[in-house]
């Protein structure tokens, strides 16, 4: 099994290299290699993951160690229940995305590099989830950032793609410093970089600062406030990439990391996490409500749902958070792939103003996406309902008993959760209605997507519909770490009522205003105001500083070099004046020099 894990990790990287190499030699071979590589990875992932589900001991293996620095850095894997489900999620979504992309990018000349990067991306995510060594985790963690950078900039002709890519990379990398310092501190304080050791020797060391630093890292990676704006800006990337990033890799890694390192989180770190989550879930839900672009709506919803998971983690609902992560992985992948299908259908435009009345034209997409929106909104009995229900209940519990957090904080989080649930229903309904109902634009030529794109949709729909079965006995997959009972009837009823009420309100408004946008955004495309603040306090000052440095280098630092040269030459010029050819001037210097020396004699003797 040790080597199966390693093979599973290396296979995506090998696939990437081979795909790139096959590149322009053969289109068919490239596609075949990319898809079969990810399928094989998925197969290996199943082999690795299934034995670890339920009440199994974690599989911890070490491949190599560098002992010359202390603590040692090593290549080591640790597959526990959490890793196992994440492996499954990442590998499956990656495979589906690869499959989907064959259709989605069927005539894109940059397909080879794209497919290679997707493989690399999934390999990086797998590295993150199975890594036992924190440095290995960091490697995967940052490689994902780089892959996302390249994939977001896939259409590098577009200015917003370029800008979004840079923004994504810089924001996440800035936050990654938190992880870097957290790792350094953990290593120094525990003498080990191994997660399996670090999380089990808690009594001896002060975990507070590293946990806070990890929260910072997670804020960047999972696009939480105040580093939340990169995720919607990443939307110019190809839609399957958005599915990959939002459902199974990049942003999910943040939640995974907190879940993985959960034992070291103390009240301080969880409070920070909870507050950040509360702010984020509300803010991003509001943005989702007033956004015109379909993909950006989904992006904001991702931010909001991730905040939900962090909120769950903050209130101690570990298994609820993990399960919501899985559920979200399924329905968000479904939504994005469906959105891709929609975008594909309307000829590449992403704004909802270009859509409308599509339910009859692309029926398969309509059905599957309806399921997806339903899960997002928390409609019973879709998977999203159960996980959200469990989280809200846990929030209420914590607010009442405040075992981890201060009570006001707990109440705030709980309130944010309920409010967000309502908002989620609202923006889901709005998007669903605007895309599939309302007036039809006859000028748009619409066509259903090819089979390679529809198959992943069916599969994900099935997962979304039947995923709720997991909640019957969560310990079947999460083992003893799962809470006994995650389903609470009272909360379920209240939440369903809430969903129904909000949905009813939206439908009422929709009908009342004749199919007009119930919440028209103030401008065509909303840019979060935080971006202006960043621009003002960070980007511009740094730009100005950079120009100042260049000027300084030229006019000050350079000046001392030039000045030294010039003054030497200048001195030469001045001294040369004395060299005027007059021998009596020379003699004068001789005599005065001698006299000066004689005076020196008087002083020195």
């Amino acid at each position, binding site marked *: 099994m040790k080597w199966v894990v390693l093979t599973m990790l290396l296979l995506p990287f090998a696939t990437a290299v081979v795909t790139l190499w096959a590149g322009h030699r053969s289109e068919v071979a490239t596609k075949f290699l990319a898809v079969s590589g990810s399928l094989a990875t998925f197969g290996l992932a199943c082999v690795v993951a299934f034995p670890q589900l339920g009440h199994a001991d974690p599989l911890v293996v070490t491949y190599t160690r560098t002992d010359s620095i202390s603590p040692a850095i090593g290549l080591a894997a640790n597959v526990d229940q959490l890793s196992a489900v994440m492996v499954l999620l990442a590998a499956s979504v990656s495979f589906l995305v690869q499959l989907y992309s064959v259709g989605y990018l069927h005539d894109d000349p940059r397909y080879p590099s794209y497919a290679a990067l997707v493989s690399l991306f999934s390999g990086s995510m797998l590295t993150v989830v199975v890594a036992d060594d924190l440095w290995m985790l960091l490697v995967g963690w940052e490689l994902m950032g780089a892959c996302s950078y390249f994939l977001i900039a896939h259409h590098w002709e577009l200015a917003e793609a370029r800008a979004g890519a840079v923004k994504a990379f810089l924001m996440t990398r800035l936050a990654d410093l938190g992880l870097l310092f957290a790792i350094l501190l953990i290593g120094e304080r525990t003498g080990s970089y191994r997660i399996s050791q670090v999380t089990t020797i808690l009594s001896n060391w002060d975990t507070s600062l590293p946990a806070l630093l990890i929260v910072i890292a997670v804020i960047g990676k999972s696009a939480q406030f105040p580093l939340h704006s990169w995720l919607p800006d990443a939307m110019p990337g190809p839609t399957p990439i958005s599915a990959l990033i939002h459902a199974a890799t990049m942003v999910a890694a943040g939640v995974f990391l907190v879940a993985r390192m959960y034992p070291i989180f103390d009240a301080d770190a969880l409070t920070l996490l909870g507050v950040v989550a509360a702010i984020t879930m509300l803010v991003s839900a509001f943005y989702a409500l007033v956004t015109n672009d379909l993909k950006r709506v989904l992006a904001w919803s991702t931010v909001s749902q991730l905040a939900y998971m962090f909120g769950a983690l903050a209130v101690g609902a570990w298994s609820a958070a993990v399960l919501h992560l899985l559920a979200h992985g399924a329905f968000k992948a479904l939504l994005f792939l469906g959105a891709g299908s929609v975008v594909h259908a309307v000829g590449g435009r992403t704004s909802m103003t270009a859509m409308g009345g599509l339910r009859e034209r692309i029926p398969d997409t309509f059905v599957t996406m309806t399921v997806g929106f339903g899960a997002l909104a928390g409609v019973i009995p879709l998977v999203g309902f159960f996980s959200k229900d469990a989280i809200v209940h846990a929030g209420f519990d914590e607010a009442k008993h405040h075992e981890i957090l201060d009570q006001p904080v707990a109440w705030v989080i709980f309130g944010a959760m309920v409010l967000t649930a309502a908002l989620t229903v609202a923006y889901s309904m709005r998007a669903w209605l605007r895309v599939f109902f309302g007036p039809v634009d006859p000028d748009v030529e619409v066509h259903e997507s090819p089979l390679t794109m529809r198959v992943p949709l069916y599969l994900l729909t099935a997962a979304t519909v039947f995923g709720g079965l997991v909640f019957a006995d969560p310990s079947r997959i999460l083992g003893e770490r799962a809470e006994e009972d995650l389903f609470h009837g009272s909360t379920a009823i209240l939440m369903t009522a809430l969903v129904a009420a909000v949905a009813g309100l939206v439908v009422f408004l929709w009908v009342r205003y004749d199919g007009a946008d119930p919440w028209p955004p103030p401008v065509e495309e909303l840019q979060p105001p935080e971006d202006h603040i960043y621009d003002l306090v960070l980007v511009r000052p740094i730009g100005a500083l950079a120009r100042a440095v260049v000027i300084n280098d030229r006019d000050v630092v350079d000046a001392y070099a030039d000045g030294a040269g010039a003054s030497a030459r200048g001195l*030469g010029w001045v001294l*040369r004046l004395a060299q005027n050819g007059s021998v009596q001037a020379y*003699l004068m210097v001789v005599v005065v020099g001698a006299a000066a020396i004689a005076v020196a004699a008087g002083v020195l003797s």
Partner: protein
Amino acid sequence: MPLWWPLLLASVLFAIGVYGVLARRNAILVLMGVELMLNAVNINLVAFDAYFRDVLHSGQTLALFIIVIAAAEIGLALAIVLMVFRTHGHIDVDDLRELADRDAV
């Protein structure tokens, strides 16, 4: 007689010689200034020789040699001066500036 009398005389003569060297334009007058300086040295040497009653007569000997050297120098110097006169038409040392540092960039 205090020893410093001849020494002071030598100092004054030396200074006069220095002035001659520095202030005169005609090469031959400059040479005369040099002769004054050398003579001042000789007065010093002879005075010290007398003071020490040097059995080796180092001072006097050196003075003698200086006189001879001065003569040789003058002989050579006059040849050089004549050469300058032939090539330049004058022996104004202040006006010999062809070799000044001019061609530098």
